[in-house]
């Protein structure tokens, strides 16, 4: 085939901004042939019906930005910021476009060019960079929050508008000091013969809010005869920083994690969002250490389904609806494993609900930054779950657990939300 010089059909127009995007990001946008098969997979498109809030539309806007056809990159940013980064479009895309990579690199480029304005965004970024990313400060903050809550300041904060309603509705109360205590670091030995050694990633906000889930995960691994290493030097995975367009801060955390888990061959995590981000350390760090670490990461359900359970889960007569966290099904392609494991729980019955792979609207700090869209999406998720009438909803991501629990409650459902690991624990041995 003959070729001639390739150049943009649309040259820069007067007043257009020059492109802040890398050639690689631009190349990735060209994979989209505008077929539109991603549209029905997109939670924001389904809410607004707007092409600019669809994956195809966003890719098109990023491409226009790269081609120097955009006058105000703030408009592009506005539509990118409304994206949940759920990756459902990647599952739907027949051309294999890496939407998540396009989104994150464009957010980073725009953030570097002009940091996002708005009080909420700035506060969120400050917290992410200076609190969430530092475990000691995070623990201290939660101790303060607990104190404030016990003094009734939470209600006051909400009343005077300091605490956004969207956050108050979703965030659980801070647990007591013993429940917030971090997992003991170092090596943990199983009672029986060891079937292998694994590292356990404990996450940032998981510890103070969902400490019981981390303890359950540790117990589950030990009960199934794995030797578990909890490194004290591990950090937050950095996912929220990447999503906020702050890849450099995320890189520092990623490097610390690759070192902390250097001696492990497998790194198990119980949070789909963290797992997905860590599996992308190769792209984030762009080096061998990142790629090696990424290949070691396994979601707890994936790891246990692969290795098999050696301890029978305790009997549990419940009707469970399993809901796929986006970053597990779309981000890590883990769909069947959690279901297979739950099927091994004696007495447990599944109830099917429509569209388990649809996003719930949690998406990190999305419900803080885009409360209206998040609420619409959460409501739809609750509706589909309520129709299935479960006793329990099982999902393996802390953000999704909070969001779904809040919306189930609002919809008048009595169903509790649990992490699959909580159902897989064997009977307590005396």
């Amino acid at each position, binding site marked *: *085939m003959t070729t001639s010089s*390739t150049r943009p059909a649309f040259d820069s127009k007067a007043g257009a901004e020059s492109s802040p995007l890398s050639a690689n990001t631009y190349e990735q946008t060209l994979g989209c042939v505008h077929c*539109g*098969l991603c549209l029905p997979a997109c939670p924001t498109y389904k809410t607004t*019906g707007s092409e600019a809030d669809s994956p195809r539309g966003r890719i098109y*806007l990023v491409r226009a930005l790269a081609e120097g056809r955009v*006058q105000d990159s703030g408009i592009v940013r506005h539509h990118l910021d409304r994206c949940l980064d759920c990756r459902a479009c990647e599952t739907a895309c027949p051309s294999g476009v890496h939407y998540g990579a396009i989104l994150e690199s464009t957010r980073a480029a725009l953030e570097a060019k002009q940091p996002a304005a708005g009080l909420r965004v700035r506060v969120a970024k400050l917290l992410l960079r200076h609190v969430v990313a530092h475990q000691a400060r995070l623990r201290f903050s939660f101790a303060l929050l607990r104190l404030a809550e016990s003094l009734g300041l939470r209600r006051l904060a909400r009343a005077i508008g300091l605490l956004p309603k969207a956050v108050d509705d979703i965030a659980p109360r801070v647990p007591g000091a013993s429940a917030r205590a971090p997992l003991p670091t170092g090596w943990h030995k199983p009672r029986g013969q060891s079937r292998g050694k694994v590292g356990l990633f404990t996450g940032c906000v998981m510890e103070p809010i969902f400490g019981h889930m981390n303890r359950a995960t540790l117990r589950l691994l030990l009960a199934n005869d794995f030797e578990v290493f909890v490194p004290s030097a591990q950090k937050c995975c950095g996912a929220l920083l990447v999503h906020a367009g702050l890849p450099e801060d995320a890189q520092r955390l990623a490097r610390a994690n690759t070192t902390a888990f250097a001696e492990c061959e497998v790194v198990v995590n119980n949070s789909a969002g963290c797992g997905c981000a860590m599996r992308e350390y190769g792209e984030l760090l762009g080096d061998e250490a990142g790629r090696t670490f990424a290949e070691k990461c396994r979601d707890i359900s994936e790891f246990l389904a692969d290795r098999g359970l050696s301890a029978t889960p305790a009997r549990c007569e419940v009707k469970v609806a399993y809901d796929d966290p986006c970053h597990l099904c779309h981000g890590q392609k883990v769909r069947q494993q959690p279901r297979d494991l739950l099927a091994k729980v004696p007495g447990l019955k599944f109830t099917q609900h429509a569209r388990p792979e649809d996003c719930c609207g949690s998406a990190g700090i999305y419900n803080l930054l885009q409360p209206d869209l998040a609420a619409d999406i959460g409501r739809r998720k609750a509706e589909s779950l309520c129709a299935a009438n479960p006793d329990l909803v099982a999902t393996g991501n802390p953000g999704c657990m909070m969001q779904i629990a809040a919306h189930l409650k609002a919809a008048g459902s009595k169903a509790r939300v649990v992490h699959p690991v909580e159902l897989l624990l064997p009977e307590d041995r005396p």
Partner: protein
Amino acid sequence: MKSVVDELEALLGPNRTIHSRDALLAWECDGFTIHREPPLAVVFPESTTEVQAVLRILSKNGVPFVPRGAGTCLSGGPTPVGPSVVVELARMNRVLDVDAVDRSALVQPGVVNLDLTTHVKHLSLHYAPDPSSQSVCTIGGNVAENSGGPHCFKYGMTVDHLIGATVVLPDGQLAQLGTESGPRPPQGLDLLGVFCGSEGTFGICTEIRVRLSTDQPAVRTLLASFADMTSACRAVSDIVGRGLVPAALEILDQATIRAVEASVYKAGYPEDAAAVLLVEFDGEEETLDEEAGQTRQVFAHHDALRIEEATDPRERLRLWKGRKGAFGAMGRLSTDLYVLDGVVPRTKLVEALEGIYAIGKKHFVVLTNVFHAGDGNLHPNISYDGRNTEETARVVQAGHEILELCVKLGGSVSGEHGIGTEKINHMPLMYRPQDLDVMARVRRAFDKEGLCNPGKVLPNRSACAESQKWPAMIARVLGEDAAR
């Protein structure tokens, strides 16, 4: 012009009125990316009353408008020609009523085709027209384009499944076309038939009553691979010649097979075959055995390399997966894709394909073929880089010659994708000026001021004469380049 946008915003609010220049870029094309033009604004009405109010504002100000659904059209139907406002109907996506006994549904135009089928699945009913984009495209868009799909060989196009529609005319007036319900089309002037396929140039339908079909008791899908395209096409003629009526008859050529197999729609098609033929029958189990048996004989007679037969839904879905995802999978070949849509008599398939491959070769374009072989509806796909104007011009020229060939062989320039802007200059290949004039008169009866999706379907007179020599689209592509 600012005042019109202000009026629209006052009516619908800022969340349902988009007019930022940069955001509007997202609406500058549909699945046909050669023609790009952003609108003045996009509005999102949510009811018939709001659509009426929007159209009244626009007609009062003399501003043209373009109705739009999911933007999966392949002929530029929802792309503006000249300054116009896009009326986006995606938010009008409710199924208003299902009548399980009379087997019909009343839907808003933004309901996604497949969502309707999902909605009535528990009643063992479905909506029969199934374009390849059925998981995305809207019923409103289907009505505008009179969409088909693989199964229309047996079950007919959109128009065959319409009972009635509430239409907002370009001046805001309401019209009821067809009936509210009923098993047969109404007597009197068949305005619903006229409206269906008018490509959004007669008005906006806001409520549509469609016929639902009963699910067949069983389905059988066969896939045969062939060492050459000619054998595959002859097998199709033989199947139909024997009096068999498959629900679908689809062919994919080798380049398509390879693109599909490299995508998430990987279906396990043999990559060494020159063509695969997908045949589907539906009906009673016993009849299916007989039909599948006869089809196997035809396959054997034409030296099929491999035959697969799916009886369970999962296998069947796998065999279809590649066909349904063929369009998007082409994204792997180049940055842009031009999906053509021509029709030839079934007996001329071999001749047409040979001619099409020759045209592709002559213009040095990457050309693949996937088509509804049962009704001779060809979809040559040309992969190209739209940033390269010289290559784009060759692609457009090849497309023009392919459509000329279809007409020469006794076929037509469009089977189901519509004329839009893409084939507007090809209309004179099929119709005499006086015939086009009759169409224009009908159009004026619906849209006196010419505000409803102008620049689509019917060429103006000067373009008719021009297009005989050189497609205006090439002139436009090159002209745009020269102007910069």
